[in-house]
Protein backbone atom coordinates (compact mmCIF):
# COMPACT_ATOMS: atom_id res chain seq x y z
CA UNK A 1 0.00 0.00 0.00
CA UNK A 2 1.26 3.46 -0.89
CA UNK A 3 1.94 5.42 2.32
CA UNK A 4 -0.51 8.29 2.68
CA UNK A 5 0.62 11.90 2.74
CA UNK A 6 1.13 13.31 6.23
CA UNK A 7 -2.11 14.87 7.48
CA UNK A 8 -4.29 13.17 4.84
CA UNK A 9 -6.16 9.86 4.78
CA UNK A 10 -5.75 7.21 2.11
CA UNK A 11 -8.40 8.88 -0.04
CA UNK A 12 -6.37 12.09 0.02
CA UNK A 13 -8.84 14.02 2.20
CA UNK A 14 -7.68 16.14 5.12
CA UNK A 15 -7.97 14.35 8.43
CA UNK A 16 -9.99 17.01 10.20
CA UNK A 17 -13.31 18.75 9.72
CA UNK A 18 -12.87 22.07 7.87
CA UNK A 19 -14.44 24.13 10.65
CA UNK A 20 -11.78 23.20 13.19
CA UNK A 21 -8.73 25.42 13.49
CA UNK A 22 -5.65 24.05 15.21
CA UNK A 23 -2.96 26.34 16.60
CA UNK A 24 0.39 25.02 17.78
CA UNK A 25 2.50 27.00 20.25
CA UNK A 26 6.09 26.11 19.51
CA UNK A 27 9.62 27.27 20.11
CA UNK A 28 12.54 24.94 20.69
CA UNK A 29 13.82 27.30 23.37
CA UNK A 30 12.19 26.83 26.78
CA UNK A 31 10.89 29.61 29.05
CA UNK A 32 9.58 31.83 26.28
CA UNK A 33 5.95 31.87 27.44
CA UNK A 34 4.47 29.01 25.40
CA UNK A 35 2.29 27.57 28.18
CA UNK A 36 1.10 30.95 29.48
CA UNK A 37 0.25 32.00 25.94
CA UNK A 38 -1.49 28.68 25.20
CA UNK A 39 -3.63 28.91 28.35
CA UNK A 40 -4.42 32.59 27.82
CA UNK A 41 -5.47 32.27 24.20
CA UNK A 42 -7.44 29.07 24.85
CA UNK A 43 -9.42 30.76 27.64
CA UNK A 44 -9.69 33.97 25.57
CA UNK A 45 -11.18 32.16 22.58
CA UNK A 46 -13.46 30.11 24.86
CA UNK A 47 -14.72 33.38 26.34
CA UNK A 48 -15.51 34.54 22.82
CA UNK A 49 -17.89 31.59 22.56
CA UNK A 50 -15.62 29.12 20.75
CA UNK A 51 -15.61 25.50 21.88
CA UNK A 52 -11.93 25.10 22.62
CA UNK A 53 -9.63 22.22 23.50
CA UNK A 54 -6.21 22.82 25.03
CA UNK A 55 -3.80 19.91 24.55
CA UNK A 56 -0.69 19.59 26.70
CA UNK A 57 2.08 17.89 24.71
CA UNK A 58 4.75 18.81 27.24
CA UNK A 59 5.73 16.21 29.90
CA UNK A 60 5.99 19.07 32.40
CA UNK A 61 2.17 19.10 32.47
CA UNK A 62 1.96 22.79 33.30
CA UNK A 63 -1.18 23.68 31.37
CA UNK A 64 -3.37 21.87 33.91
CA UNK A 65 -1.41 23.52 36.72
CA UNK A 66 -1.92 26.98 35.19
CA UNK A 67 -5.66 26.35 35.10
CA UNK A 68 -5.76 25.30 38.75
CA UNK A 69 -6.21 21.60 37.94
CA UNK A 70 -4.14 18.57 38.91
CA UNK A 71 -1.62 17.21 36.45
CA UNK A 72 -2.84 13.90 35.03
CA UNK A 73 -1.73 11.45 32.37
CA UNK A 74 -4.52 12.30 29.92
CA UNK A 75 -2.42 11.99 26.79
CA UNK A 76 -0.88 8.74 28.06
CA UNK A 77 -4.28 7.18 28.77
CA UNK A 78 -5.54 8.30 25.37
CA UNK A 79 -2.67 7.07 23.23
CA UNK A 80 -1.05 4.25 25.23
CA UNK A 81 -4.09 2.81 26.97
CA UNK A 82 -6.56 3.51 24.18
CA UNK A 83 -9.18 5.21 26.36
CA UNK A 84 -11.75 7.28 24.44
CA UNK A 85 -11.00 11.00 24.32
CA UNK A 86 -14.17 12.03 26.18
CA UNK A 87 -12.94 10.08 29.23
CA UNK A 88 -9.55 11.73 29.41
CA UNK A 89 -10.41 15.35 28.75
CA UNK A 90 -11.41 17.60 31.61
CA UNK A 91 -13.61 20.65 31.56
CA UNK A 92 -11.51 23.56 32.79
CA UNK A 93 -13.73 26.57 32.17
CA UNK A 94 -16.94 27.32 30.25
CA UNK A 95 -16.31 26.29 26.62
CA UNK A 96 -12.76 25.20 27.50
CA UNK A 97 -11.66 21.58 27.81
CA UNK A 98 -8.15 20.37 28.47
CA UNK A 99 -6.34 17.19 27.48
CA UNK A 100 -3.78 17.19 30.28
CA UNK A 101 -0.34 15.67 30.41
CA UNK A 102 2.28 14.81 32.97
CA UNK A 103 5.61 13.00 33.10
CA UNK A 104 3.94 9.91 31.58
CA UNK A 105 3.77 11.88 28.33
CA UNK A 106 7.38 10.72 27.85
CA UNK A 107 6.07 7.16 27.44
CA UNK A 108 3.67 8.39 24.76
CA UNK A 109 6.66 9.29 22.60
CA UNK A 110 7.91 5.72 22.74
CA UNK A 111 4.47 4.33 21.93
CA UNK A 112 4.05 6.68 18.96
CA UNK A 113 7.49 5.80 17.62
CA UNK A 114 6.35 2.18 17.25
CA UNK A 115 3.08 3.06 15.50
CA UNK A 116 2.20 3.18 11.80
CA UNK A 117 1.61 6.65 10.33
CA UNK A 118 3.16 7.96 13.48
CA UNK A 119 3.32 11.62 12.43
CA UNK A 120 -0.44 11.98 12.10
CA UNK A 121 -1.69 10.13 15.19
CA UNK A 122 -2.66 13.32 17.00
CA UNK A 123 -4.41 14.78 13.97
CA UNK A 124 -6.33 11.52 13.60
CA UNK A 125 -7.51 11.76 17.22
CA UNK A 126 -8.51 15.42 16.94
CA UNK A 127 -10.47 14.57 13.79
CA UNK A 128 -12.99 12.72 15.92
CA UNK A 129 -13.76 15.71 18.13
CA UNK A 130 -16.09 18.63 17.52
CA UNK A 131 -14.05 21.53 18.80
CA UNK A 132 -13.92 24.79 16.88
CA UNK A 133 -10.44 25.61 18.11
CA UNK A 134 -7.64 23.37 19.36
CA UNK A 135 -4.57 24.87 21.00
CA UNK A 136 -1.52 22.62 21.22
CA UNK A 137 1.12 23.45 23.81
CA UNK A 138 4.29 21.85 22.45
CA UNK A 139 7.34 20.92 24.49
CA UNK A 140 10.65 22.72 23.86
CA UNK A 141 12.18 19.65 22.22
CA UNK A 142 12.38 17.96 18.86
CA UNK A 143 10.76 14.54 18.97
CA UNK A 144 7.90 12.57 17.47
CA UNK A 145 5.30 14.29 19.67
CA UNK A 146 6.57 17.67 18.54
CA UNK A 147 6.27 16.60 14.89
CA UNK A 148 2.75 15.28 15.63
CA UNK A 149 1.83 18.71 16.98
CA UNK A 150 3.16 20.47 13.89
CA UNK A 151 1.50 18.02 11.49
CA UNK A 152 -1.83 18.55 13.25
CA UNK A 153 -1.62 22.34 13.19
CA UNK A 154 -3.00 24.84 10.73
CA UNK A 155 -1.19 27.80 12.22
CA UNK A 156 1.97 27.87 14.26
CA UNK A 157 2.37 30.62 16.81
CA UNK A 158 5.99 31.03 17.89
CA UNK A 159 6.40 32.92 21.17
CA UNK A 160 9.88 34.26 21.68
CA UNK A 161 11.73 36.37 24.17
CA UNK A 162 13.80 39.04 22.50
CA UNK A 163 17.19 37.57 23.24
CA UNK A 164 19.62 35.88 20.89
CA UNK A 165 19.02 32.32 22.13
CA UNK A 166 15.24 32.50 21.93
CA UNK A 167 15.40 34.09 18.47
CA UNK A 168 17.66 31.18 17.48
CA UNK A 169 14.88 28.88 18.74
CA UNK A 170 12.56 30.61 16.23
CA UNK A 171 14.98 29.70 13.45
CA UNK A 172 15.05 26.09 14.63
CA UNK A 173 11.28 25.72 14.71
CA UNK A 174 11.02 27.23 11.23
CA UNK A 175 13.51 24.68 9.94
CA UNK A 176 11.44 21.89 11.52
CA UNK A 177 8.30 23.33 9.95
CA UNK A 178 10.12 23.35 6.63
CA UNK A 179 10.84 19.62 7.05
CA UNK A 180 7.20 18.90 7.90
CA UNK A 181 6.02 20.98 4.91
CA UNK A 182 8.37 19.09 2.57
CA UNK A 183 6.59 15.88 3.59
CA UNK A 184 3.31 17.25 2.34
CA UNK A 185 1.73 19.17 5.23
CA UNK A 186 0.35 22.54 4.21
CA UNK A 187 0.53 25.08 7.04
CA UNK A 188 -1.87 27.97 6.63
CA UNK A 189 0.69 30.25 8.19
CA UNK A 190 2.79 31.13 11.19
CA UNK A 191 3.31 34.15 13.39
CA UNK A 192 6.01 35.25 15.74
CA UNK A 193 4.90 36.60 19.09
CA UNK A 194 7.47 38.57 21.09
CA UNK A 195 6.90 37.89 24.79
CA UNK A 196 8.37 39.32 28.03
CA UNK A 197 8.66 42.52 26.00
CA UNK A 198 10.47 45.35 27.75
CA UNK A 199 10.53 48.38 25.50
CA UNK A 200 12.99 50.29 27.64
CA UNK A 201 16.04 48.13 26.94
CA UNK A 202 18.42 48.53 24.03
CA UNK A 203 18.69 44.75 23.51
CA UNK A 204 14.91 44.46 23.05
CA UNK A 205 15.01 47.13 20.34
CA UNK A 206 17.95 45.49 18.56
CA UNK A 207 16.34 42.03 18.56
CA UNK A 208 12.90 43.44 17.73
CA UNK A 209 14.34 45.24 14.69
CA UNK A 210 16.07 42.02 13.63
CA UNK A 211 12.95 39.87 13.69
CA UNK A 212 10.82 42.58 12.09
CA UNK A 213 13.42 42.90 9.33
CA UNK A 214 13.46 39.13 8.83
CA UNK A 215 9.76 38.32 9.19
CA UNK A 216 7.86 41.59 8.52
CA UNK A 217 4.13 41.20 8.95
CA UNK A 218 4.54 37.75 10.50
CA UNK A 219 5.64 39.50 13.68
CA UNK A 220 2.57 40.11 15.79
CA UNK A 221 2.30 42.85 18.44
CA UNK A 222 4.28 41.87 21.54
CA UNK A 223 3.19 40.86 25.03
CA UNK A 224 4.61 43.30 27.60
CA UNK A 225 6.66 41.98 30.50
CA UNK A 226 4.37 41.74 33.49
CA UNK A 227 4.93 40.23 36.94
CA UNK A 228 1.24 39.57 37.41
CA UNK A 229 1.51 36.78 34.83
CA UNK A 230 3.68 34.78 37.23
CA UNK A 231 1.29 35.46 40.10
CA UNK A 232 -1.72 34.23 38.08
CA UNK A 233 -0.27 30.75 37.55
CA UNK A 234 0.54 30.50 41.26
CA UNK A 235 -3.16 31.01 42.02
CA UNK A 236 -4.28 28.64 39.24
CA UNK A 237 -6.10 31.49 37.50
CA UNK A 238 -5.94 32.54 33.88
CA UNK A 239 -4.95 36.11 33.09
CA UNK A 240 -8.55 36.83 32.10
CA UNK A 241 -9.56 35.96 35.66
CA UNK A 242 -6.63 37.29 37.65
CA UNK A 243 -5.53 40.50 35.92
CA UNK A 244 -7.73 41.27 32.90
CA UNK A 245 -6.46 44.85 32.64
CA UNK A 246 -2.77 44.25 33.31
CA UNK A 247 -0.16 45.35 30.73
CA UNK A 248 0.27 41.76 29.48
CA UNK A 249 -3.43 41.69 28.65
CA UNK A 250 -4.10 45.25 27.57
CA UNK A 251 -0.74 46.13 25.99
CA UNK A 252 0.95 49.51 25.93
CA UNK A 253 -1.20 52.62 25.92
CA UNK A 254 -0.27 55.16 23.23
CA UNK A 255 -2.86 57.92 23.30
CA UNK A 256 -6.10 56.21 22.32
CA UNK A 257 -4.28 53.15 20.96
CA UNK A 258 -3.50 49.92 22.74
CA UNK A 259 -0.44 48.20 21.36
CA UNK A 260 0.19 44.50 21.93
CA UNK A 261 -1.07 42.38 24.80
CA UNK A 262 -3.17 39.23 24.81
CA UNK A 263 -6.42 41.04 24.03
CA UNK A 264 -4.99 42.23 20.72
CA UNK A 265 -3.58 38.74 20.12
CA UNK A 266 -7.08 37.27 20.41
CA UNK A 267 -8.28 39.71 17.72
CA UNK A 268 -5.45 38.58 15.42
CA UNK A 269 -6.33 34.94 16.06
CA UNK A 270 -10.00 35.55 15.34
CA UNK A 271 -8.95 37.03 11.99
CA UNK A 272 -7.06 33.80 11.28
CA UNK A 273 -9.99 31.66 12.42
CA UNK A 274 -12.51 33.60 10.35
CA UNK A 275 -10.22 33.53 7.32
Amino acid at each position, binding site marked *: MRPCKVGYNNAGSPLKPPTMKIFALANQKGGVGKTTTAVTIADGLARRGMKTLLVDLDPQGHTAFALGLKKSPGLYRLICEGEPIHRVIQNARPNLDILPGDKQTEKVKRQITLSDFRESILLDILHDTEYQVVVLDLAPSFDVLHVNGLVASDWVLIPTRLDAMAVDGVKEILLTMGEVARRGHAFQGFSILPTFFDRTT*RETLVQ*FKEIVKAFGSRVW*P*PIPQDTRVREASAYGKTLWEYCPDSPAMAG*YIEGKLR*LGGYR*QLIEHMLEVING
Partner: protein
Amino acid sequence: MAERKLERRTILDPAVASLLTDMEHRQSDAALPRREREKKAREKAKMRARRDQRATFDLPPALRQQLMEKAEAERFPASQLVTLALVRLFQDLAAGMLDLAPFKQPSRSPRYDWNLVLPESLLPAEAKKSVKKNVKPKA
Protein backbone atom coordinates in the same frame (compact mmCIF):
# COMPACT_ATOMS: atom_id res chain seq x y z
CA MET B 1 14.54 57.09 -19.26
CA ALA B 2 16.27 56.34 -15.98
CA GLU B 3 15.46 52.91 -14.59
CA ARG B 4 13.30 53.03 -11.50
CA LYS B 5 14.77 51.19 -8.57
CA LEU B 6 12.22 48.83 -7.14
CA GLU B 7 12.15 48.26 -3.42
CA ARG B 8 10.46 45.36 -1.75
CA ARG B 9 7.79 46.55 0.69
CA THR B 10 7.36 45.03 4.10
CA ILE B 11 3.86 45.51 5.39
CA LEU B 12 4.16 45.55 9.13
CA ASP B 13 1.43 45.10 11.65
CA PRO B 14 0.48 48.73 12.52
CA ALA B 15 0.94 48.08 16.24
CA VAL B 16 4.40 46.63 15.66
CA ALA B 17 5.38 49.57 13.44
CA SER B 18 4.11 52.05 16.02
CA LEU B 19 5.99 50.35 18.86
CA LEU B 20 9.15 50.20 16.83
CA THR B 21 8.99 53.91 16.02
CA ASP B 22 8.26 54.76 19.63
CA MET B 23 11.18 52.66 20.86
CA GLU B 24 13.52 54.25 18.34
CA HIS B 25 12.45 57.73 19.54
CA ARG B 26 13.01 56.72 23.14
CA GLN B 27 16.41 55.33 22.27
CA SER B 28 17.48 58.48 20.42
CA ASP B 29 16.11 60.65 23.26
CA ALA B 30 18.17 58.62 25.74
CA ALA B 31 21.31 59.46 23.78
CA LEU B 32 20.73 63.25 24.11
CA PRO B 33 22.55 65.43 26.68
CA ARG B 34 20.71 65.74 30.01
CA ARG B 35 19.44 69.29 29.42
CA GLU B 36 17.95 68.48 26.04
CA ARG B 37 16.44 65.30 27.41
CA GLU B 38 14.75 67.26 30.20
CA LYS B 39 13.54 69.89 27.74
CA LYS B 40 11.99 67.20 25.53
CA ALA B 41 10.37 65.56 28.55
CA ARG B 42 8.86 68.93 29.58
CA GLU B 43 7.53 69.50 26.06
CA LYS B 44 6.02 66.04 25.98
CA ALA B 45 4.38 66.53 29.37
CA LYS B 46 2.96 69.86 28.17
CA MET B 47 1.56 68.24 25.04
CA ARG B 48 0.08 65.41 27.06
CA ALA B 49 -1.56 67.86 29.48
CA ARG B 50 -3.11 69.78 26.57
CA ARG B 51 -4.53 66.65 24.94
CA ASP B 52 -7.84 66.91 26.84
CA GLN B 53 -8.24 70.56 25.88
CA ARG B 54 -8.20 69.88 22.16
CA ALA B 55 -11.42 70.03 20.15
CA THR B 56 -12.15 69.90 16.44
CA PHE B 57 -15.21 71.53 14.92
CA ASP B 58 -16.22 72.64 11.44
CA LEU B 59 -16.53 76.40 10.95
CA PRO B 60 -17.39 78.41 7.84
CA PRO B 61 -13.98 79.42 6.41
CA ALA B 62 -14.76 83.14 6.55
CA LEU B 63 -15.72 82.90 10.22
CA ARG B 64 -12.48 81.06 10.94
CA GLN B 65 -10.62 83.76 9.01
CA GLN B 66 -12.35 86.47 11.03
CA LEU B 67 -11.43 84.68 14.25
CA MET B 68 -7.77 84.36 13.28
CA GLU B 69 -7.56 88.01 12.16
CA LYS B 70 -9.05 89.23 15.42
CA ALA B 71 -6.69 87.07 17.48
CA GLU B 72 -3.75 88.29 15.40
CA ALA B 73 -4.78 91.94 15.70
CA GLU B 74 -5.26 91.77 19.45
CA ARG B 75 -2.18 89.54 19.82
CA PHE B 76 -3.72 86.75 21.85
CA PRO B 77 -4.29 83.05 21.10
CA ALA B 78 -7.29 82.23 18.93
CA SER B 79 -8.17 79.36 21.32
CA GLN B 80 -8.72 81.87 24.13
CA LEU B 81 -10.94 84.00 21.92
CA VAL B 82 -13.04 80.94 21.10
CA THR B 83 -13.19 80.08 24.81
CA LEU B 84 -14.44 83.59 25.62
CA ALA B 85 -17.03 83.43 22.83
CA LEU B 86 -18.34 80.09 24.05
CA VAL B 87 -18.45 81.21 27.69
CA ARG B 88 -20.49 84.23 26.65
CA LEU B 89 -22.74 82.04 24.49
CA PHE B 90 -23.57 79.74 27.39
CA GLN B 91 -24.10 82.70 29.75
CA ASP B 92 -26.53 84.22 27.27
CA LEU B 93 -28.32 80.92 26.82
CA ALA B 94 -28.60 80.44 30.59
CA ALA B 95 -29.90 83.99 31.07
CA GLY B 96 -32.46 83.53 28.32
CA MET B 97 -30.86 86.28 26.24
CA LEU B 98 -30.39 83.96 23.31
CA ASP B 99 -33.04 81.63 21.97
CA LEU B 100 -31.97 78.88 19.59
CA ALA B 101 -35.51 78.07 18.47
CA PRO B 102 -35.63 80.54 15.52
CA PHE B 103 -32.49 78.93 14.05
CA LYS B 104 -33.66 75.32 14.32
CA GLN B 105 -34.69 73.45 11.19
CA PRO B 106 -35.45 69.72 11.00
CA SER B 107 -32.46 67.62 9.97
CA ARG B 108 -32.61 64.67 7.58
CA SER B 109 -29.55 63.12 9.21
CA PRO B 110 -30.20 59.96 11.25
CA ARG B 111 -27.77 61.30 13.84
CA TYR B 112 -29.34 64.72 14.48
CA ASP B 113 -32.88 65.94 14.88
CA TRP B 114 -32.11 69.55 14.07
CA ASN B 115 -29.78 71.81 12.10
CA LEU B 116 -28.94 75.29 13.33
CA VAL B 117 -29.30 77.48 10.26
CA LEU B 118 -27.88 80.92 10.81
CA PRO B 119 -29.39 83.93 9.04
CA GLU B 120 -27.06 85.42 6.45
CA SER B 121 -26.99 88.71 8.29
CA LEU B 122 -25.13 87.05 11.18
CA LEU B 123 -22.33 85.64 9.04
CA PRO B 124 -19.29 87.47 7.64
CA ALA B 125 -19.47 88.35 3.93
CA GLU B 126 -17.37 85.41 2.68
CA ALA B 127 -19.21 82.96 4.88
CA LYS B 128 -22.53 83.98 3.32
CA LYS B 129 -21.21 82.89 -0.08
CA SER B 130 -20.08 79.51 1.18
CA VAL B 131 -23.36 78.93 2.99
CA LYS B 132 -25.30 79.88 -0.15
CA LYS B 133 -23.33 77.34 -2.20
CA ASN B 134 -24.35 74.58 0.17
CA VAL B 135 -28.05 75.45 0.21
CA LYS B 136 -30.09 73.36 -2.22
CA PRO B 137 -32.61 75.34 -4.26
CA LYS B 138 -36.21 74.71 -3.24
CA ALA B 139 -38.22 72.64 -5.67
